[in-house]
Structure formats: C-alpha cells, structure tokens
C-alpha cells in the first residue's frame, strides 16, 4: 500500500475518532494492537482470512477481541483483513500518532537507555520533563544496549543524544581528524 493511502486512512481514522471523542482511546488501543505484531503467526493467520465475507470477519473479530476493542478500530481491522492489507496497520498507527500529537498539541517523548530504568528514576525523569513543559506530554521508555550508557531523548523528531556511544563516536571522529 502506498504511504499516501496509509496517511489518508490515518487522517480518516483521526476524524472519526474525533467525532466520537475517542482520539485518546483509539491512540492507546492502536498501541496495544501493535504489540500483536510481535506474534507474526497470529498476524499471518489473520491475513489469510481475507477470503471470508464481511459478516464472517465481523464475527471472527468480535469473537477474538470481544468488547475490549473500540468499534472504530474493529471496523478498521475488518477492512484491512478483507483487503489483505493488515501489515499496513503499523504504518497507519505511526501516522495516526503523528496527527494525534500534532492536533492535540502533545509533546511526544521517547527515552532510550542502555539498561531498563527503575520506577523511581522513571518517575523522577517524568516529573522533570512535566515541570519543564507547559503542555500535555506523552513519554515512552525503551532500552537499546548499543548505547552502552547514558540516554537518548527524542522529543517528537528531535534527538538529544547523551549516550556513551555518541561520546565514543565523537572521540573516534576527533582521533581520525587528528590523524
């Protein structure tokens, strides 16, 4: 699927969610749906159901997700399975997140550290960022052991790199230029 179509779908999804005042719920549930993509066999099984009729797909979706999944997302799920485009959901989700944060003026933070942070440190970092920002914030914590130490802070697309790997990289460049 072309990224422009994914972008259009994400825009439409946001409009419908906005009309139903469910933008935040859709955002959270989309993040939950993305976790399902870690289980590739589950996604493959679903993708192979595209030959089913819409009624059968509705029922299968209802039986799988029950009442837990928002109706808007249920419809999107059925549509993607029927058109054999379920693999596009992560892209649509990415665009939805982009639109959601932009439209609702939310600062999106992602903090990547080499090791998992303890709860106390997470709270400390969160409150520090909250006190500095005069807007709604969303923070996600991730780990990447290639950083060696320190942390990378993403605010929307802007990266501030405090990692040890960045420091070593700079040292490497200085040594090369010195040579």
């Amino acid at each position: 699927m072309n990224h422009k179509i994914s972008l259009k779908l994400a825009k439409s999804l946001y409009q419908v969610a906005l009309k139903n005042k469910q933008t935040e719920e859709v955002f959270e549930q989309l993040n939950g749906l993305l976790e399902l993509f870690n289980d590739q066999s589950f996604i493959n099984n679903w993708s192979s159901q595209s030959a089913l009729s819409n009624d059968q797909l509705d029922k299968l979706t209802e039986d799988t997700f029950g009442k837990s999944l928002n109706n808007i997302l249920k419809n999107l799920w059925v549509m993607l399975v029927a058109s054999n485009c379920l693999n596009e959901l992560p892209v649509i989700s990415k665009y939805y997140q982009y639109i959601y944060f932009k439209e609702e003026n939310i600062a999106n933070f992602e903090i990547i550290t080499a090791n998992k942070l303890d709860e106390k440190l997470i709270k400390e970092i969160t409150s520090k960022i909250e006190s500095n920002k005069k807007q709604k914030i969303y923070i996600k914590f991730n780990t990447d052991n290639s950083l060696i130490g320190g942390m990378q802070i993403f605010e929307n697309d802007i990266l501030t790199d405090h990692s040890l790997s960045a420091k070593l990289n700079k040292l490497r460049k200085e040594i090369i230029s010195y040579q």
Partner: protein
Amino acid sequence: MKLDVKKITSNFQEQLENLNFKPDSIDTGRVALVGDGVVQVNGLSGIKMGEMVEMPDGSFGMAINLEQGVVGCILFSDGKTIKEGDLVKSTGRIMEVPVGTELTGRVVNALGQPVDGKGPINTDKFRPIEHKAEGVINRKSVSTPLQTGIKAIDTMIPIGRGQRELIIGDRQIGKTAIAVDTIINQKGQNVHCFYVAIGQKQSTVATVVNKLKEAGAMDYTTVVVAGASDPAAMNFIAPYTGCAMAEYFMYEGKDALIVYDDLSKHAWAYREVSLLLRRPPGREAYPGDVFYLHSRLLERASRLSDAIGGGSITALPVIETQANDVSAYIPTNVISITDGQIFLESELFYAGKRPAVNAGISVSRVGGSAQVPVMKKVAGNLRLSLAKFRELEAFAQVGSDLDAQTKAQLERGQRAVEVLKQPQYRPLSVSKQIAIVYALNTGLLDDIEIKDISEFEEKLYTYMDDKKKDFQEVLTSANKFTPEIEKELKETIENYKTIWLSAKN
C-alpha cells in the same frame, strides 16, 4: 612488560571526560522504505530541501522530496546495510562540495572526493551544489572570445566567454572530441576547465583523462566523474558539483569553462530518481520539472559585471540525439535554454568531413560580438558560401552541363570543405585560422589541388611559425582588418605558395 590495565582504563576515562561533549539536538526520522538508491523516511519534520542526511551506516543522502509525514532522499551509497526502522539524522547542511585551486589536475566523484589515487584534497573552501544563478544587474554581455581551436567553430559559430553553447548530435560522431579539443586549446589562456562525465563508462573517462594529460591540459582541468555504475543520485548531482567548482573561479574574477558530457544521461538519471520517488511522470516519463533541472544549471553559466569581478563560466553542454532527431523532448529543452548549438551530423562524419559540423543549422546567438575582429571580417561570408555550395552540389548531381561560374563556385566549395576538415586533438591558433580562411576566400587556394590542401595548410602554418611569429600576434589582437594587415597577410600566403609550388614542381 605487564600491561597496567587499571591505568589504561583510567587514562581512557580521563580522555572521555576531557572531551568537550555537548550533545546537539538533531532532527531525526526512521527509514520507512529503502531500495534502488532512494529511501523514504518518516519524521525529519524540520528538514530543508537539498539538506544532507546521515544514514546509520555513516553514508550520506540528500532530501529532495518533502511531503507530509514522509521525506524522500536519494542515497550516495549502495544502501545495502540500511533497513526499515533505522535512524536517519539530518545534518543541517545543504549539500556542498570542496572547491578551490587544490582541485585543479584532480579527478573527483560527484561528492568532490578524489578518485585518482593522488591522496586527499586539502581545501577548506566549500560551496553548495545548488546556487541561484546571478540576476540581470550582476551580468555583462559576452564580449571576450573563447577559442575552441576548431576552424569550423571559431570561424562560423564563435563562442564567447560566459556563453552556453550546446554540442548536439548522434552517438559516436565526435561530440566529446570537440569538447576535449576546446579544453586542450585553453592552454595558457587563463581559463580553468571542468569536464563533467555523466553516466559514462569508466574506460571512456580514463581515455579522456589520458588525452588531457598527454596534451598537458590537466594542469588547468578538473574532471568530475559519475560513472555508469554509480547510483543515479551521483549522476543527478554531478553537473551541479562541477558547476559549484567552476563558480568558485567565476566569483574570484577568473574565467572557467565547463563541459557537461552529457545532459541526456543526466535527464535519464533524474527520471530514474523521480520515478522511484513516485513523482508523477509526464512526457517520455520525465517528471514535470525536467526543464527546470537543466535551466537552473545552465543559467549559472554567465559573464559577471566588472563590479563583482568580471569572471565567467562558459558552458558546453552535450546532448545525444537518436537518428539526428533534434525535436525530441530533452534536445528541444536544452536548445531553447542555450545561446546556440553546434549540430554534428552523422552523414558528414561518415563521409570523412570531420569535425562533422553542420554549418547550416548550427548557430551562435551571442558569440558574434565576441569574435576576433579580423576573423569576423575574413570569415564573414564563409557560412553563406558553404550554403551556396551545398545547394549547387545537389544541383550539379543532376545537371551535366555547368557554366564556368558555377564550376568555379563548386571548386571553391570543395576547397572550403577540405579546409574545414581538422584532425582530432589538433586545435589551431586564431591567426592560422585567419590565414587559411583568407586564402580560401580570396581564391589563393584555387590553383592548389584539393588533395594537396591539407599538406599545404600544414606547411603554411610551419612557415608562419618560423617567419611570421609577430604578425600572428597582430592578427589576433588587431581591432580592425586594416589594408596594411591585409597586404601583409596576402604577401605571407603568396610568398609561401610560391615556395610550395616550386617545391611541388
């Protein structure tokens, strides 16, 4: 000796702590799609058009497509290690290349990196590859000649410094030869030359470089290479790189000559990149802005006003046609942008009339005002007499009985064709060109057999070098073709002709 591991560790830690490390905030994005030399990146919301981006493998790309939520970049590497989800960093720098005199005599790629194995280029000067062409106020009209050393061009299609003259024709009929001869002829003329090879075989480029070396032309020439095996992105930026390098000299008040060999392949590379970036295709599948692609490049060739140094860039773009069709899309575009064209015809080439310049449809729109005054006077009617000859030649093929005047005109025309023949890599000085064209137009060659003309010509030049060195200077620098100059020129030719005819008999 035992290694003191603790000491080594503490030294390294000290080094790290002493490092002046202030993390910058950089705009980033994630690779959404990669393949065929292009990447599409989600994010990079603050990126500028033409900005360089750093890929996770340390290679670079350039942003050329900015859309909502996605940025299209071209890659300057094969991109084999880049994968979906990789972090792409913006550099904040518009694509720029090294410039300066340090590049003279070097062969570089489209990024300005040396590819000739002669070590790094130590310059601290850089210029952006995209630069707005100078406006009307800062320009001056073309007034100084740029001699190609080719009789057929300097006499009938003169080129001035700051002009854009297209070299157009089918494959393998001497387009590059004209460009290379022109570069060779700039020796001692204070013109810095740039030869930009776009989409050519490496062996072809190596031949050109060797020819330039043999002729001593690499002392003032830089070769920019984007080969046929390089990514389309490299072919796309190569002419802009060459132009940026030439602009350095222009803004220093010097003269530069740049050859783009060739812009057809440049248009192909741009078409490839555009289609991969999913831009809508137009005529012949080229994107809508293919005219602007070449116009913004060729407009940068200009003659600057004295107020800003008076430097110039003369551009010789090359276009390859298919079966002499000049009405195809890219040829018509470039014809309309340039200040004239040198049209090479395959029929003339295969008939042995080389360089195969078709004087009838070749034109120089501004070069006339830059032509050496004596040459202008002497060669003024050469184009007309050649045109008349072509007409009569066609007529003579069907008519058997010709009057004396027509016969004489035909004889003169055949001599003109013979005089305009010139071997490759043998550019000729203006004074010698003036002498031979004068001899032709005044009938001094009429009693010389056609087959002997080239021999006579060669020996006349040797005679002029031996006996008339100062007079050659007068011919080149005189503001007017005075009766005194004409008298001496006539005497020189007649004197030598007497020697030659007596030796012949």
